[in-house]
């Protein structure tokens, strides 16, 4: 595979052809925030937190869905980008109902951690507080729409890794919602295998296992890579 060279925050670096900007940026030790991206899943390009500036184009590029190109000159933390990222996280916090003090993942939530890292101490936008249900019909997992950021990680993990495609989106715009099968209680789903992958990959407290609620359990989304690698190399074939 070919090698390309590009400039990242004033430093000349090299990358493999076909890599995404995000991969390259991370390989080079730059901390670029993301929410909808997860190693092992297809890219959604939806949260827009990974936007970067590229010299020569006025458009901002979402690093997770942009392939590297020879000669790119990328900046990841300009004043404008940092400001936008803060706004995006504020918008997410205002969109549903996030009361961290009573959340099962308080202290272990990617959204919360990101807000802290970006120095968000208050939200400038009117909280929407939509009236959303909590689906606690499943014996082991709970889906709380009030904490969902619609990143679609659960949907992709369930479809692409577990192969169940139990979860999907319904509605559009701010009315979008995660659904189970044909919008039915999770507990009544015939397609869900109960594998818990969605729980592990959900960055927030929107999908948790009942044992999470008691506190103390970390989510481990990195299992995806192990599974996928194992499958590819057929490690488990007898």
């Amino acid at each position, binding site marked *: 595979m070919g090698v390309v060279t590009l400039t990242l925050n004033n430093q000349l670096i090299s990358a493999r052809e076909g890599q995404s900007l995000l991969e390259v940026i991370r390989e080079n030790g730059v901390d670029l925030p993301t929410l909808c991206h997860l190693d092992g899943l297809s890219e959604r390009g*939806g949260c827009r937190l990974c936007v970067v500036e590229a010299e020569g184009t006025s458009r901002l590029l979402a690093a997770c869905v942009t392939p590297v190109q020879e000669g790119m000159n990328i900046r990841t933390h300009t004043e404008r980008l940092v400001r936008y990222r803060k*706004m*995006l996280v504020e*918008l*997410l916090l205002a*969109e549903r109902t996030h009361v961290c003090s009573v959340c099962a993942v308080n202290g272990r939530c990617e959204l919360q951690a990101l807000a802290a890292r970006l120095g968000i101490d208050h939200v400038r936008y009117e909280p929407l507080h939509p009236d959303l249900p909590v689906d606690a019909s499943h014996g082991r997992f709970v889906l709380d729409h009030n904490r969902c950021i619609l990143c679609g990680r659960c949907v992709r993990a369930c479809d692409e890794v577990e192969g169940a495609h139990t979860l999907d989106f319904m509605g*559009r715009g701010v009315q979008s919602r995660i659904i189970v099968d044909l919008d039915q209680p999770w507990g009544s789903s015939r397609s869900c295998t109960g594998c818990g992958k969605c729980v592990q990959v959900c960055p927030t407290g929107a999908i948790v296992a009942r044992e999470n609620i008691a506190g103390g359990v970390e989510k481990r989304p990195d299992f995806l890579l192990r599974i996928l690698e194992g499958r590819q190399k057929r490690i488990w074939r007898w």
Partner: protein
Amino acid sequence: MNRTELQTMAEAERSRQQAFRCRFLCCAGTPCLSAGGGAVQQALKQAVAARNFEASVEVVGAGCMGPCSRGPLVRVIAENGEETLYERMTPEKAARLVEAHAAPGSTTLPEEWRIAEDSPFFSKQTKIVLSGSGRVDPERLESYVGEGGYSALAHALREMTPEEVCEEVVRSGLRGRGGAGYPTGVKWNLMRKAPGERKFVVANGDEGDPGAYMDRTLMESDPHRVLEGMALAAYAVGAEQGYVYVRGEYPLAAQRMERAIRAAERRGLLGHRIFESRFNFRIDIRIGAGAFVCGEETALMASIMGRRGQPVPRPPYPAQRGLWGAPTLINNVETFGNIPPIIQRGGTWYAGYGTEKSRGTKVFALAGKVSWTGLIEVPLGITLREIVFDIGGGIPGGRAFKAAQTGGPSGGCIPAAHLDTPMDYENLQALGSIMGSGGLIIMDDTSCMPDVAKFFMEFCMDESCGKCTPCRSGTVQMVRLLDRITGGRAVPEDLERLEDLCMLLKETSLCGLGQTAPNPVLSTLRHFREEYEAHIRERRCPAGVCDLGN
């Protein structure tokens, strides 16, 4: 069918028409039909039957004639070719029309029923795309053929290589009429050169812009023109399968397109070995389920493939990876409508209309506070003043022109100071608006600009697909802020917050919907900032529209 047979069909149709003493063309476009056009056509037929005139008088449904707000319209074509256009017809009036025209000498009709066809509404227009609209019967293939239809395709298949067809389109300077104005010939050439065993051609007839109905009209009024344009495109780029993506709210357009496809297939104008050449091309219809975002090309393709209609990041562009991974050419319906005349009369002829960088004509849906509303086609470069005051007949009630909103939810406003700017892609952009797909809403001094901006923002909020954060969540917050402003509850920082969100959406949204959603706000802020400030600082609506009762 071969070329001689096409000519025979055209001649037969022309002499059939000439055999009539008198022909009544009833507008059968959606606006006229909803004003009662169906009953008028029925009444005409009954009156003709009552007089036993069937052999010498024809009553047919035709497409949109332009001044839709005056419908139902009926055009009468006499034996000597003389035409008369009647407005606001009713079944009762229809019977008298038959008496006056089919049994001459018996009665005379009130002068005020007529629309003068030499009025500026018509004389300032140039009809290229709409030349058949209101003249051909959209339900009869012969009618289109009689007007020269399919001869461009016959000519191209016999005498032109695909390269030459592309070259002709490049020469015409035609730019995509779907909104962005990308040069059509350049797109076709890219498609032609794209490697791929299978290629697709798609006509985008989704037309979700509020108030716009250019594409619906073309599909309803002259469906074969769209098919011929698509077939020419398919030949030029090497595709064998096409789709017409019709908005779900356009059942009549879908029905007429479907019927046209069947008729063309039966005659060998679509399908296998068209005009006995080696060229095959099939077209199918796909109906949208009512989402504005499905007009966006990547969402449209997802929808055609039966997936959730959500955009995906470009590149890869459809010409690189489109439907089922194959190169796909997507053009707007009106864009395709321009193709047959370009091939027939040459790109140079077409480039003779319009301006240096914006060639040809553009169809607009003229609406709002003008005396004449409806569908118009004008050469690009015409000034807004000519459209509003000559074609549109000025502002009713002696009020003042305030602004024209162009480009729908992706567009902006042009204030009175720029009435004399020639309308082309570059000038509109320089004024902070866009050509867009052709919605043109005229506003007088009773319109409140923050309120107008709120209307479009609400539209974008409702139509956001929800995939990306800035658009999904940002549009809601922008509507809230505009609501505070128009409701007299805003503080000065709200304006700052609103402008910040505009920039965020513009720069970080995934697709064109979110990227352009702030435009109506930005453009009204640019030209009418004082109105926003009056609402915020003085709790006053200068136009007297908003209820600022706190």
